[in-house]
């Protein structure tokens, strides 16, 4: 990223992409480490949200606002995945 670019929305979006990439890396460490299944579910949920944010930043950085539609779909699917995992975990706890 060049320095004269930093005052524009594109430059800011590129900076946001770098920060979200770092956040994705940190979250991925938690996903690998666990230590329990709910920890991994939380990490996966956060990865979904971060991906939506990254798509939004990428849409600004590359001037492609069409990318907002995949972000919407990803938000919907991510929530469903979280709910499915949570109800599965709770049923498993009840069956014990």
């Amino acid at each position, binding site marked *: 990223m060049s320095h004269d670019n930093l*005052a*524009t*929305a594109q*430059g*800011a*979006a590129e*900076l*946001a*992409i*770098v*920060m*979200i990439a*770092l*956040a*994705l*890396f*940190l*979250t991925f*460490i*938690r996903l690998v480490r*666990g*230590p*329990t*299944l*709910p*920890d991994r*579910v*939380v*990490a996966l*949920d*956060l990865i979904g*949200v*971060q991906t*939506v*944010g990254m798509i*939004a*930043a990428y*849409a*600004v950085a590359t001037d492609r*606002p069409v990318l*907002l*539609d995949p*972000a*919407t779909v990803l*938000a*919907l699917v991510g*929530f469903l995945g*979280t*709910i499915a*995992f*949570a*109800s599965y*975990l*709770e049923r*498993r*706890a*009840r069956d*014990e």
Partner: protein
Amino acid sequence: MSERISVVLLVVGGLFMLLAGLGVLRLPDLFMRLQAATKASTLGVGCLLLGLAVHYQELGITTRAVLVIAFFVLTAPVGAHMIARAAYAVGVPLWAGTLTDELREHRSAARLHIPEEPPESPKRQPLE
């Protein structure tokens, strides 16, 4: 002016996403991590989408961005609550420095099948 607003919103959104990732990695137990993952990431994604809406200033894009923000604000607490409830029922250990666990006294009222031991008891193995 609107360019500056969208720059600020995008950078702040990225920072909050970074904070969420950091919190999920560094906080000591699942329930604190859940707090970082839910609140910080909702704010971060909200700022990023608002920045996008301010940058384009078109009706269709703004509508979609506001729709996604409203969806996150509605669903993030619900999802976090469901995961926390399931994790507590499964027996995920609390942080060693936790002072109160009020849910334990009300576990029958909450219809959670919690064993007699407190969740931090080593006898109860959380699901791997």
